[in-house]
């Protein structure tokens, strides 16, 4: 079996004059949890819509389970459990109606699993979706996305605007999905602490381009926060190879630096400054540095 669940090559998408996706290539391998991060409007949702076959590639290609999702929607969509921020649920239905409707659509529907999820999430079968709280509705959407044990779970900003208890359910669902062998998760979020907790791999998009695509552990090992001191005040950040984003001014600068830590001292020596302090950085800081616009 092909281990490439999603393969995107040189994907371009323009809306009017704006390039929403600009030569994007990425691979999602079986058994991976991939966290897709980026600011609003960076292109996350546009990329996800291509994977779902809701948008056709202008140029470049998209393959999901080895197939073109636009040419073969049922072949692709019946294998993807999808949950979006809005939920997209038919609000006039009751939960038990939604379950029956979904069971008919997905060949692999597991009625017992659906029932156990319903109990776990504390949802009433006769409750109308339109009358549920936002958190309950997210749980209902999650139930439908999980109950047919999809090969790919695709979550687009699933915990946006939800309280911590519901967010915990969603993270738990991701973890449970990946614990069953051979299943794969792609989720987009701006809550980076969550992304950091559950992802194997991170793809960071900025203005339609991928600026970072690596294993999370590797990203954490190669990014460092470094505080630098200079004898004379500087009006602009010094030129430092590997610098991702700068803060500070005058004689004291702080940089998110990417590279082999053993090469740091030598690189800093060239700027005429010295290392005052250094340490690890959270994904949040790495993200801000990459999104900050101070990259040459």
């Amino acid at each position, binding site marked *: 079996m092909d281990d490439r669940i999603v393969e995107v090559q040189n994907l371009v998408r323009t809306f009017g004059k704006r390039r929403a996706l600009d030569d994007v290539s990425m691979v999602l391998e079986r058994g991976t949890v991939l966290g897709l991060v980026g600011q609003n409007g960076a292109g996350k949702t546009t990329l996800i819509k291509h994977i779902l076959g809701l948008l056709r590639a202008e140029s470049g290609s998209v393959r999901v389970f080895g197939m073109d999702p636009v040419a073969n929607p049922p072949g692709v969509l019946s294998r993807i459990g999808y949950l979006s921020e809005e939920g997209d649920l038919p609000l006039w239905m009751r939960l038990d109606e939604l379950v029956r409707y979904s069971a008919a659509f997905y060949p692999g529907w597991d009625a017992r699993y659906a029932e156990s999820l319903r109990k776990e999430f504390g949802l009433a079968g006769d409750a109308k979706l339109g009358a549920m709280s936002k958190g309950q509705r997210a749980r209902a959407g999650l139930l439908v996305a999980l109950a047919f044990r999809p090969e790919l779970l695709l979550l687009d900003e699933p915990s946006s605007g939800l309280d911590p208890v519901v967010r915990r359910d969603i993270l738990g669902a991701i*973890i449970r999905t990946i*614990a069953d062998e051979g299943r794969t998760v792609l989720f987009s979020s701006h809550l980076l*602490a969550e992304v950091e*907790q*559950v992802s194997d791999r991170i793809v960071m998009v900025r203005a339609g381009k991928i600026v970072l695509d690596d294993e999370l552990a590797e990203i954490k090992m190669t990014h460092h926060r470094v505080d630098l001191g200079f004898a004379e005040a500087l009006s602009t950040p010094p030129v430092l190879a590997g610098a991702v984003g700068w803060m500070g001014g005058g004689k004291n600068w702080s940089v998110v630096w990417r590279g082999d830590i053993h090469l740091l001292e030598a690189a800093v020596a060239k700027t005429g400054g010295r290392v005052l302090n250094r*340490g*690890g*950085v959270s994904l*949040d800081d790495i993200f801000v540095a990459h999104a900050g616009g101070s990259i040459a």
Partner: protein
Amino acid sequence: MRIHISSTDGVPIYMQIVQQVRRLVAGGELNPGDELPSIRALADQLLVNPNTVARAYRDLEVAGVVTSSRGLGTYVAETDSQMAHDEKRAVLIERVDALLIESRQLQIPLDEVFEILKTRDTEIFASKNGETEVKNG
């Protein structure tokens, strides 16, 4: 098992698990033969990716801290006293490395670092009647 994950520091989560299990073993909170939670149970408890826990357990196994047999779980390894001592040293060396790096950044020479260590040891542990008293500053 008492493990706490922080996503704000720079250490990858699998490494946080490895370091904390090593400390629990070195500190005698986990003893040879004790069973570690299953990968899935620890992933659920910490709310982290099971692949991450699996990677931590693999690293711990390679380091000889735990043994695992397929299907039977993961156990703290039997160690002879030399190995147990080495393990304690490994935990300490992590801290010493951090101290050395910081000393260098603060431009305090190694001799002075030794001095500080000796002085602090005296101040902390050599109080009268064998009482342990920790002074600040």
